[in-house]
């Protein structure tokens, strides 16, 4: 199973790296600005009628919060895999 997962992981990493390697002048922006622009192109009178009640004060703080979100999730996943593995080996030890 580990070998299979390693292969899958390599494929994911390759899929992620290829755009960066082949599209060297791309901006890889992260704002949702393009869709906003498209809306303005279609309906130039449209004004967003509500703005975010709180926005991260800077890109750095936004990335901090995104990292935290990832960390919390990854912690739970790691805990889950470790717990299951531990439980499994314990069971098989008792059997033998």
């Amino acid at each position, binding site marked *: *199973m580990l070998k*299979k*997962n390693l292969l*899958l*992981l390599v*494929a*994911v990493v390759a*899929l*992620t790296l*290829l*755009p*960066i390697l082949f*599209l060297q*002048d*791309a*901006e*890889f*922006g*992260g*704002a*949702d*600005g*393009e*869709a*906003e622009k*498209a*809306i303005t*192109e*279609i*309906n130039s009178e*449209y004004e*967003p*009628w*509500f*703005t*975010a*009640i*709180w*926005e*991260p004060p800077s890109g750095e703080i*936004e990335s901090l*919060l*995104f*990292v935290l*979100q*990832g960390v*919390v*999730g*990854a*912690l*739970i*996943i790691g805990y*889950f*895999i470790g*717990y*299951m*593995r531990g*439980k*499994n080996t314990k069971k098989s030890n008792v059997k033998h």
Partner: protein
Amino acid sequence: MKQLLPKLAYFGVVFLFIPKEAYAMHIMEGYLPIRWAIFWFVLCLPFLVKGLMAIRKVVKENPESKLLLALSGAFTFVLSALKIPSVTGSCSHPTGVGLGSVLFGPFVMSVLGSIVLLFQALLLAHGGLTTLGANIFSMAIVGPFIAIGVFKLITKWGLSFSVAVFFAAMLGDLGTYVMTSIQLALAFPAEIGGFLGSFQKFASIFAITQIPLAVSEGLLTVMIMNFIQKYNMSELIKLRILKAKES
């Protein structure tokens, strides 16, 4: 109907050869007219109510499955935090709803996905409160339903569990962003070309960027499922996802 096919073919070609710079994610705060915002909210409500009931039932019947439930939520949390570069020269993030949909069904996942979207709207100014209904509908309802449908179909065809999981997660992810494009096109039909004209525009922003990410999400979901299969087989059988004989 006759006109639709060439149109669709044309869009396909346009999508392939004119990669636009795009930042594909959820619908931004304030960018849906109020009547559409309300419409999507109302549409989501029955799904969320049923989802809460489904979660209660799962936890009551299988208390041990709480851990898997947490895992499904955590998986969405991680995947939707990963902004990944794509072929269009911009970034987007996967949704991660496929795993939970296969494990617990689409209704349970609609609740977990909504929690993630609420978190991102409140703390990250990503998506938004007024567009939350629309974003829940695309990511936490349409995505999971496509995922479970694809999973069941492929399993029925007799293909392997991993293949079914891969396509379920991948097409659920892709379907989410096609839905986002439909939602925006409905709210902002183009003066020339109407709904289809706008759909082409938004799909080239939202859906194309998503294709490689959807493949990545499919692969990552298979990876996690491999772990669950190895260490938690009994749970999968209890949740009636795998039959006992396969263990």
